[in-house]
């Protein structure tokens, strides 16, 4: 047992840090530090910088453009990325549909889609959730009926993140209505330019416009856009959702936010002293830090176990801890960052509102704090709510 990073790992960390320092667009980084939403262009520009460097899809098999890093390096890379902070490449392509395509897709699909995902030539979105199917995903109702060389798709998807920019959507659709719930589902790749697709934004309570409803009306999808076998889509979805859980602890992001809390609590005054000198405030921060440090070690244990097992893409069910604790910490830090602002948490200033370039007593870092607290309530809901994660652990780990 040696709980220190190896010299090689430390050198790798330095390499990654240096690369971020030299290559992350400063404008993008500033937006992230300030808690603002990123634009489409922030993602595209940064993903192409990464891809040009060979780091577009580090965790993919080398034959499809991966770096061949072991899980520990992948972890170090992601942590540094989140801490810098730099945008994490959108998961819909590189973490979700990409691995499904290279694992279950046809050669044509691999050849066409994978390079375009790595370079963000295609912006993907996820068509899983439906209005009636949240945590109970398998109860989805969107139908796909085979007509010659096409599937004709009808239904509605929801919670579709950043669909407004999407070129493609990967959808779970029901191709056999007689089968049991989990059977009879297929995995389709759909071009967003196909007639019959309508995207409507859902505004979230933080004022964000990231999620959407997607309506599909007689949408004709060529059969070659079916992934794997018809009616086996549930297996691919489970594979995909398993991948999703591994990155969700967001240790680096929480470290970055803690640094931000410390910095801004040094600027806000309380009782004539900087808030950061307030012992009670520091204790609250310390309580979160302890949890985060423990979670970091828990994450590293999962990573090490993954490395030992070989990269099967099947995370240990114990990794549900990462989702639960990770989301709790993210929520605790967004709340504490809002607390830093005191009364200045109240002003709601739309991003890029030019009037606020004029001098004002509202500190420019304050107005995003409450919206971020509101927005981060989602992290215990999406990707399998924390209640679902606990059900999984109770069954799969504790045998209850």
């Amino acid at each position, binding site marked *: 047992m040696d709980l220190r990073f190896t010299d090689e790992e430390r050198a790798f960390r330095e390499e990654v840090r240096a690369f971020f320092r030299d290559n992350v667009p400063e404008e993008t980084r500033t937006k992230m530090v300030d808690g603002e939403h990123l634009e489409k262009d922030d993602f595209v520009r940064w993903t192409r910088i990464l891809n040009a460097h060979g780091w577009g899809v580090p965790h993919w098999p080398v034959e499809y453009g991966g770096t061949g890093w072991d899980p520990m390096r992948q972890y170090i890379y992601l942590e540094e990325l989140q801490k810098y902070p730099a945008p994490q490449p959108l998961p819909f392509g590189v973490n979700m549909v990409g691995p499904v395509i290279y694992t279950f897709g046809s050669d044509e699909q691999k050849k066409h889609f994978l390079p375009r995902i790595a370079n963000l030539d295609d912006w993907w979105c996820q068509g899983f*959730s439906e209005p*009636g199917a*949240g*945590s*109970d995903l398998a*109860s989805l109702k969107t139908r796909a009926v085979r007509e010659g060389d096409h599937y004709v798709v009808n239904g509605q998807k*929801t*919670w579709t993140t950043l669909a407004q920019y999407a070129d493609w959507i990967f959808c779970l659709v029901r191709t056999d209505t007689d089968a049991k719930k989990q059977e009879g589902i297929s995995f389709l790749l759909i071009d967003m330019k196909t007639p019959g697709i309508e995207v409507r934004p*859902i*505004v*979230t*309570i933080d*004022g964000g416009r990231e*999620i959407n409803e997607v309506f599909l009306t007689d949408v004709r999808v060529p059969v070659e856009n079916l992934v794997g076998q018809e009616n086996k889509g549930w297996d691919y979805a489970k594979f995909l959702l398993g991948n999703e859980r591994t990155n969700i602890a967001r240790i680096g992001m929480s470290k970055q936010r803690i640094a931000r809390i410390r910095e801004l609590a040094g600027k*806000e*005054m*309380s*009782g*004539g002293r900087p*808030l950061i000198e307030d012992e*009670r*405030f520091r204790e*609250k921060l310390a309580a979160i830090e302890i949890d985060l440090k423990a979670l970091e070690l828990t994450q590293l244990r999962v990573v090490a176990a993954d490395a030992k097992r070989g990269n099967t893409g099947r995370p240990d069910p114990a990794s549900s801890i990462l989702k639960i604790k990770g989301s709790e910490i993210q929520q605790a830090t967004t709340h504490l960052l*809002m*607390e830093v*602002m*005191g*009364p*200045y*948490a*109240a*002003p*709601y*200033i739309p991003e890029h509102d030019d*009037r606020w370039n*004029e001098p*004002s*007593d*509202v500190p420019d870092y304050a107005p995003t704090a*409450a*919206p971020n*607290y*509101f*927005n981060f*309530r*989602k992290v*215990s*809901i*999406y990707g399998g*709510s*924390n*209640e679902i994660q*606990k059900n999984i652990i109770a069954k799969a780990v504790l045998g209850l």
Partner: protein
Amino acid sequence: MDFDLTEEQSILKDSLDRLLADTYGFEERKRHMASAEGWSAEAWNRYAEMGLMALPFAEEDGGIGGGPVETMIVMEALGKALALEPYFATVILGGGFLRLGGSAEQKANLVPLVAEGSLKLAFAHTERNSRFDLARVETKARQDGDGWVLSGSKSVVLHGDCADRIFVTARTGGASGDETGIGVFLVDANAEGVSRRGYATQDGLRAAELTLENVRVAADAVYGDPSDALPLVRRVVDQAIAALSAEAVGAISAMHALTLDYMKVRKQFGVPIGAFQVLQHAAVDMYVAIEQARSITLYATMMADSDDAAERAKAMHAAKAEIGRGGRLVGENAIQIHGGVGMTMEYAVGHYFKRMTMIDVAFGNTDHHMRALARAGGLFDAAA
């Protein structure tokens, strides 16, 4: 001890609840929020017609003579409806200074205007470095003949954008943080040297940044002792906390009701989600928190017009802290149980959640009041 409402109080409660149910649904509220003012002049007039503006003022001043219980009833109803109008700023805050700090003449001049709904007031206190400390005032007031000249800037002045006149704290002596040397001045929002910038707050209300550059006010703008008005400020803020607590009880009760409804209709895995024991217990935890919030609000209401400033302050510390932690528990659970739909602007629960979050940062958050209570020696002395 008697927890029953009087007949008049019951009538007040029922008629206000009915008015809001009939005219102030979620869709109407959204329209009001999207309007230029951010609230409804029509609703404002209805409140005035019902006598809500006149309610807390003494009859001899042109009011109705209601007390803290009446205010609790109104604020709870407004909280339930998430009402956007400047009632709290005008009647509770501004009205508080009028009632508790105004001379007979000042009241005679202004109470009738407030009572009829034609005068809107606000309270400008928070400054860049004050956070939740009421004694931390840097805005300056300099005597100038009979009058005063004010200079400084004030932040997050609730409904300061629409107020006709604004109560402003300013330092007439001493240094920031001193308990003495603070005065309260009523400033015309259109006076020379006053500039303000209005904006929405996170919960859809309105507020303003206020700048005062050599603003001249007459002698009759002074409320209370200009060199020692902090006790007046504390008294008004204590009553405001009692009122906010009642608003919070209305808001969290409504949130809970929405959540229970949702649990009964929303199905997952073939059953209503209300069938899952974990969610049932979460709903019970919310219920317990709400009943506790209601109880501590009753306590705050009982203490709101106490002349014992120390005991009154303790009650408000307790109420604000309990409302803060209970409100957060209820709000976060309500969102969690609703899932994604609770995160959307189209659904009411998120708006309640935002309002509760903003109530916590108004007039001192949970931590602030927990500490203040601890410093004051706690709630139960040996004789309690």
